[in-house]
């Protein structure tokens, strides 16, 4: 799995698992049945085995997704090929969606304000690619948030331990492949990318949907079986800029004062809404929005923010004088913080399973269930004890996604840029999760992932590279 394990730079991707199990299982269908066994003769032509994104998704042999495979299936080159086919066939139309983090990144890259970028982007997609729809992802995100909140209201009272957000595909894959014990904790509500795709395909079932997203793992998300029909191709802002370079296009020449958001919006959509953003973190604000949704039914309650051990851990609590802590949620970003969360949720179980007795001497160590407020006045963020965790694989969250136009290699400077973009994000007009969303908030399973544990391959042909000592 990629975002957790690699730097944002494309060249730093981990290559396909050195011990990829896929070549060990060549397809047998094309082989003629043979009743003779030849000894000592190798087949003349070794069969070429290709690995698809779906293969990567269905295999726990390694948790990497290779750059090569990602880009061979979903890239701006693939998009351009498809688009020229579409033009010739004239059967399908093009729909484009773009996430707010990508818009901010592109605006920063082209030194434009966000409103200019949006108009320029819409105009470019409309005139260059003849796009039918060009939309932001806030409509899809609002539905995603609304369904997450509804699910939490049902599940939190019955659930032991926190429920985990499944919007980050990096984290979802990591859990599916390496941490099966997390699956019962995870929500199955789809991400804004997928819900946006679903809605676009409802508006025009024949459209080709290009999604522009801040990280490469979104390509894997779109390749999931239950997601395939919603998104046809995912590219990142890095690839978008590369595509313009390939086409020798000056993006800024598409700058216009004319706002085409209304005509590029499917009918029935609020043409302003999907270009806006909601309150909360720049990764989507899922943790904050959950408490916000509960606040209305708890008069005189406040949401307090507790800073964590580092800038990638934040806890929110909904508190009132009469009821104390009513509900809590948290944001946990980056591999190290995910590790601490995962270890707290699963370690004790696995140590117990192995039958190892661990001595606990410390009198000062709090027993589980006790909260630290009873003994100390200082509030400390402890995501493992909150009701809901917004988990994002990247440090600083989606605003630091690997596909954004942030070439800075140094993590600290990257972080600074991410903070600058986060600040810009807070200036995007914020919206409340509106009532219109509820019309789409039906009981269909279209907006749900089919999360599952991916068992490690039992193939014995895997050759691990590197010696064991």
């Amino acid at each position: 799995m990629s975002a957790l394990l690699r730097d944002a730079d494309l060249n730093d991707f981990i290559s396909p698992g050195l011990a990829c199990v896929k070549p060990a299982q060549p397809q047998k269908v094309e082989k003629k049945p043979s009743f003779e066994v030849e000894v000592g003769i190798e087949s003349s032509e070794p069969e070429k085995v290709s690995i698809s994104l779906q293969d990567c998704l269905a295999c726990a042999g390694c948790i990497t997704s290779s750059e090569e495979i990602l880009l061979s299936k979903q890239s701006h080159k693939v998009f351009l090929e498809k688009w020229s086919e579409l033009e010739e066939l004239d059967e399908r139309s093009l729909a484009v969606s773009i996430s707010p983090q990508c818009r901010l990144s592109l605006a920063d890259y082209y030194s434009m304000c966000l409103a200019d970028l949006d108009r320029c982007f819409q105009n470019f997609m409309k005139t260059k690619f003849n796009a039918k729809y060009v939309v932001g992802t806030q409509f899809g995100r609002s539905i995603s948030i609304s369904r997450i909140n509804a699910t939490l209201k049902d599940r939190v009272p019955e659930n032991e331990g926190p429920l985990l957000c499944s919007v980050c595909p990096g984290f979802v894959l990591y859990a599916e492949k390496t941490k099966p014990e997390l699956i019962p904790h995870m929500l199955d509500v789809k991400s804004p990318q997928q819900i946006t795709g679903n809605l676009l395909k409802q508006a025009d079932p024949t459209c080709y949907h290009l999604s522009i997203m801040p990280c490469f793992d979104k390509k894997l998300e779109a390749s999931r079986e239950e997601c395939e029909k919603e998104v046809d191709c995912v590219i990142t802002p890095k690839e978008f800029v590369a595509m313009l370079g390939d086409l020798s296009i000056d993006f800024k020449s598409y700058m216009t004062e004319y706002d085409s958001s209304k005509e590029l919006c499917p009918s029935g959509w609020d043409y302003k809404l999907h270009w806006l953003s909601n309150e909360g973190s720049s990764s989507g604000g899922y943790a904050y929005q959950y408490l916000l949704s509960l606040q209305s039914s708890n008069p005189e309650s406040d949401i307090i923010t507790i800073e964590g051990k580092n800038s990638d851990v934040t806890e929110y609590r909904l508190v009132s004088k009469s009821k104390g802590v009513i509900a809590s949620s948290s944001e946990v970003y980056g591999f190290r913080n995910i590790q601490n969360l995962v270890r707290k949720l699963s370690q004790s179980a696995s140590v117990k399973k192995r039958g190892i007795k661990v001595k606990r001497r410390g009198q000062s160590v709090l027993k589980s269930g006790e909260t630290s407020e009873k003994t100390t006045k200082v509030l400390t963020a402890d995501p493992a004890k909150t009701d809901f965790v917004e988990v994002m694989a990247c440090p600083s969250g989606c605003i630091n996604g690997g596909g954004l136009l942030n070439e800075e290699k140094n993590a600290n400077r990257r972080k600074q840029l991410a903070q600058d973009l986060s600040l810009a994000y807070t200036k995007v007009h914020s919206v409340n999760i509106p009532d219109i969303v509820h019309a789409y908030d039906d009981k269909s399973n279209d907006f749900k992932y089919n999360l599952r544990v991916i068992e490690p391959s039992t193939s014995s042909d895997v050759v691990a590279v590197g010696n064991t000592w």
Partner: protein
Amino acid sequence: MAGLKLLKSLALHDDKCWSVDVNNGGIMATGSTDRKIKLVDIRSFQIIEELDDTAHKKTVRSVAWRPHSNILAAGSFDSTVSIWGKDDDGYNDENDLETELLAIIEGHENEIKCVAWSHDGELLATCSRDKSVWIWEADEMGEEFECISVLQEHSQDVKHVIWHQSLPLLASSSYDDTVRIWKDCDDDWECCAVLNGHEGTVWSSDFEKSNSNVRLCSGSDDGTVRIWCLEDDNGEYEQEWIQESILPKAHTRAVYSVNWSPKGYIASTGSDGRLVIYKESEDGWIVECIHELTHGVYETNMVKWVEYGSKDVILLITAGDDGHVNVWKFDEN
């Protein structure tokens, strides 16, 4: 001419012995492919205790005492780190309490190759075949560990980690032929230098025990030991390190272990079974002495200077594939 004399050969393990460490109470811990961890009194050479060998399912590859404590960390090929300790303050009491398992740290994907405590005992670094180095913050009791950083820049198996004796600097050695230097930046650890030069796996490294110079020695599969020097630390993120010298060639095969003594000697051992001591003279580094076949025909996996005891007696400990731990007396004259 300086010399080495074998004081004691301890047949501790039924299989390869990988790692030894001695705490300031004179207790030596050893780890082996036989999955056992043994504690030995370095004065009497008596085995004090064998730790519960059900804690690890595979080879115990690395052991390290937390400075100024009776807390031991052990890293295993079963991908976990075990933490051991006892309530009692020392090992002097005849009716000592048993050393108990305080924690099992999980997180690495596969074989752990090395564990190392920072000089103040607050941080534990671990590295693995999964190509990553993890830094853990430990509580005082050694029971609670929080991951504060996961360093993933190495492109291959990370063989060894070691902290500077006073500065917040960590060095990691890898199968990718490099040593990386890491430092604390804001609230995370960042790679501030990559030491390129070795032409094979770097098996281990060690910082000079000095507060004025910042130097590092490294031993590699290419058979060399190299000295690296911090040239420029602008206080920013990057540090400039240069390769200062290659020590006179004294090994015929891979160098597995290097250790820099408080007095400035460097010891190295490796696949050829040799124990080599180097000394820095006015004309550069010279080989002070070479001892052949330190563990018979077997490979010597680790060498360690022992600071314990009288300042006049300098001890060296080696661990070999024969399962033995050998204790050597080094005579400077």
